């Protein structure tokens, strides 16, 4: 009927490649500072998980691994769509894709996880230095810094 054997080398190396893909995605997620590349690194981690699932499905002669991978694909597509619209909404507020600009969401008495020296002084400046970085609501502030105005030919169109 059935026999119990250890993994053969093909299955083993496929699982190892899957683990390698996952770890590469994790490194990218930890080290990059671009919001878009963070999302892409998460997708690379999902590739590793999918490869593991498919390999396990083949090892056990079962369709479930591939069925789960289809669900992973679905969730990844949803995540990409939501993440990109979020990135656009965040970019509208800071005009930068730097992840460190969003460490301001912490509580006031908690120190910054990254010192300003390590971050580089230039990268921490956003286009909205003077005004509080809250979600724009209500009446627009009357005066905006010059640099904020994206289109100088049409002063009536302000990006906030």
């Amino acid at each position, binding site marked *: 009927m*059935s*026999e119990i054997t*250890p993994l053969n*080398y093909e299955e*083993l*190396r*496929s699982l*190892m*490649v899957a*683990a*390698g*893909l996952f*770890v*590469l*995605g*994790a*490194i*990218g997620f930890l*080290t*990059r*500072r*671009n919001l*878009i*590349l963070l*999302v*892409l690194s998460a*997708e*690379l981690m999902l590739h590793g998980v999918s490869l593991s699932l498919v*390999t396990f*499905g*083949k*090892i*056990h*002669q*079962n*369709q*479930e691994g*591939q*069925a789960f991978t*289809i*669900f992973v*694909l*679905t*969730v990844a*597509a949803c*995540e990409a*769509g*939501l993440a*990109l*619209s979020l990135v*656009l*909404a965040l970019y*509208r507020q800071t005009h*930068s*894709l*730097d*992840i*460190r600009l969003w460490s301001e969401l912490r509580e006031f008495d908690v120190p910054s996880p*990254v010192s300003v020296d390590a971050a580089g002084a230039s990268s921490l400046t956003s286009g909205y230095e003077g005004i509080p970085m809250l979600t724009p609501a209500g009446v627009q502030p009357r005066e905006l810094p010059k640099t904020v105005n*994206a289109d100088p030919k049409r002063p009536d169109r302000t990006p906030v």
Partner: protein
Amino acid sequence: MNEWMQQHPASIGGLVLWAIGLLWLMPSGKSDKARPGLPGILLAAAGVVAFCLGAGRGVDTLQSEVMFWSFALTALVCGALMITSRNPVYGALWFALATLGTCGLFMLQSAPFLAAATVIVYAGAVIVTFLFVIMLAQQTGSAGYDRRGQFGIPAVLSSFVLLGVVVYELQSAPLQINRPETPKVAEVGGASGSRDGGTMTSPPALPSPDAPINPPPPPSVPALLSRATPETPVGSMKGLGRSLFGDYLFAVELAGTILLVASIGAIAIAPRREEGAL
């Protein structure tokens, strides 16, 4: 642990070489002038080869070996280049190549439908959307935060320690698999019995028509339709469809609902013209 290190020097060396290559490729940002990437790529590729050789050797068929090595190298080296590229546009393109390598590996693991679906979804839709967003949001070339990463050395070290632990677990105490009798169909050539997708390997051996069909063992899990049979080998469209629309019908409905909710949410979140263009 010591025993494993003596028995698998290739895995250890591969991990070390790979980590060094990644650290070499990592954007340092000390100066605008980037290091030459070729030594890092070669180091990472050598590390990947040694790492995969640590799984053991053996030649099943020449085609499957060639395809495994090319796909695995494509996936892992392009993944390394993606997470270290200074320009996000190039990062997205490297990610597309890594996706293609992963799809090749799917094909080798007898999942031709999944390989095609992943190519369509990722390389066709996700990458194009990402490139659009990059071009909308970042028109001035690579910014300072792209030329300079954060936590480079600790991230690489801890992640490779994690990878080493996973590989140690896989190699020192191999999983004992309770293999059913039927997999004869899908083992040959690695491309399953589906005639529509597995054209890249040698044609699989079809089961002889008078092969006895084993009675299914008593169900330990309720998922009965997902089990591979000689008529529906792993990865065949028929078997996958039976699994998805039999055992996982509710999950498929939920996935459709999630897609609907996510698309509505994306439209709601995305900034609109009158609120201020990019």
